[in-house]
């Protein structure tokens, strides 16, 4: 019998019994947990990466593009790849929380639930950016294009932030249903269509070296979308995860 049966004294000092712990500390804890679990299993990252590479390979062989056409389709192919791979990652990330009841474990913690949202959002963003960092050089080689430009990277970052913040919120909603794998893209894509189109337009414009004024409005749209939808997700997450 391994269980220690002695009447262990209760230690009042260990729990601060405050209404909430540190907001930042809670966010960091969720990110640490996600990265640690992913480092062990590599389920989420490898699925996203393999899926992304397959998409760009399929496009590469299917389209047989000349140099001029490559330039015009690159932004569309890139963002379609990121969007589909992102959906896969978002689904898996929230399914891990749901499958063993861990989402309840998170919600039982005496922290502001928006800290849980930000923790999940940042770890999802880290996974998405990690995949993008690997996909971009492979895409550059396959399509013979230089995508390592600071302005293109900035647009990719802005688009990824908007996509992931809304995606984290919607995946928290869809994971509670039986049809979660189907429901996430059905709910998510109509909401992210505006920033995806803006990201495609901005990336395409930058790659075609058009004047900055021409890509300014889609970039502004991306910034506005990121701010508004991250704020909306922050305010509504608590209601979405509660029954």
């Amino acid at each position, binding site marked *: 019998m391994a269980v220690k049966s002695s009447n262990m004294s*209760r230690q*009042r000092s260990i*729990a601060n019994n405050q209404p909430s712990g540190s907001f930042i500390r809670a966010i960091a804890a969720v990110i640490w947990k996600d990265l*640690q679990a992913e480092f062990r299993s590599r389920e989420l990252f490898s699925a996203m990466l393999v899926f992304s590479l397959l998409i760009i390979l399929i496009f590469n062989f299917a389209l047989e593009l000349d140099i001029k056409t490559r330039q015009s389709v690159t932004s569309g192919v890139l963002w379609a790849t990121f969007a589909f791979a992102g959906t896969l990652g978002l689904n898996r990330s929230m399914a891990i929380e749901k499958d*063993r009841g861990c989402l309840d474990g998170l919600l039982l913690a005496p922290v502001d639930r928006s800290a849980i949202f930000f923790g999940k959002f940042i770890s999802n963003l880290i996974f998405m950016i990690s995949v993008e960092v690997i996909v971009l050089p492979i895409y550059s080689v396959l399509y013979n294009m230089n995508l390592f430009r600071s302005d293109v990277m900035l647009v990719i970052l802005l688009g990824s932030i908007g996509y992931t913040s809304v995606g984290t919120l919607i995946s928290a909603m869809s994971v509670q249903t039986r049809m979660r794998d189907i429901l996430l893209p059905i709910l998510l894509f109509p909401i992210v269509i505006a920033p995806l189109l803006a990201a495609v337009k901005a990336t395409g414009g930058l790659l075609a070296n058009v004047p900055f004024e021409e890509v300014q409005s889609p970039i502004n749209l991306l910034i506005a979308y990121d701010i508004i939808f991250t704020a909306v997700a922050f305010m509504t997450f608590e209601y979405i995860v509660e029954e």
Partner: protein
Amino acid sequence: MIAVRKLVKRFGVKTILRGLDFEVELGEFVALLGPNGAGKTTFLRILASLSRPSLGDVKVAGYHLPKEAAQVRAKLGVVSHMPLLYGDLSGDENLRFYGRLYNLSSLEARITEVLEMVGLENRRKDLVRTFSRGMQQRLAIGRAVLHDPDVMLFDEPYTGLDQDASSMLDDVLKTVAAQGRTIVMTSHDLARAEELATRFDVLSQGVIAASTTHRQLKKSNLLTFYKQALAG
């Protein structure tokens, strides 16, 4: 410690709890009995601040729900039939993660103490997915007591456990109860409930249909009491 008045919970047009009244004193161990679909889990989820009441007044550890949910959660430990643990983290990593969420001081010492209490000290570095169901459930109790809660809720903690694992869980539960905590446990296992609890409430058709204490109950009579309560 827990005071519930006229609690109503509806899901759409379906009413699960119909004006339920429930009160638990400090240090009591209440077994909440009832058939499947009676609303036991729904009730516990409301007490745990995981679900909002449709109507009624709910107070846990001196705080109102859902208004003061964060304060309630700091004083509450919950164990369900799901472990609420991450399979790809080790035993002590799981506890460290939850300890950080609860902002505990002296976390490493507390993790060691809790792992010793649930008898998993020698498996602390192993991934939880390699644990048996019984070990996972013991670690789940360790997770729930990590922040030294005043109130503990157990929702069918014995589900899926074999005889050995169940008797080990009995010991852990007795240790947890002996530390002066207020406990509410739902169960279908009347014999086990009779052994552990000090009070027995029967939830039927959305209300507490009957209530008795261990003292009032004659030995081996819980089944009769339960059947009478359900018969109305």
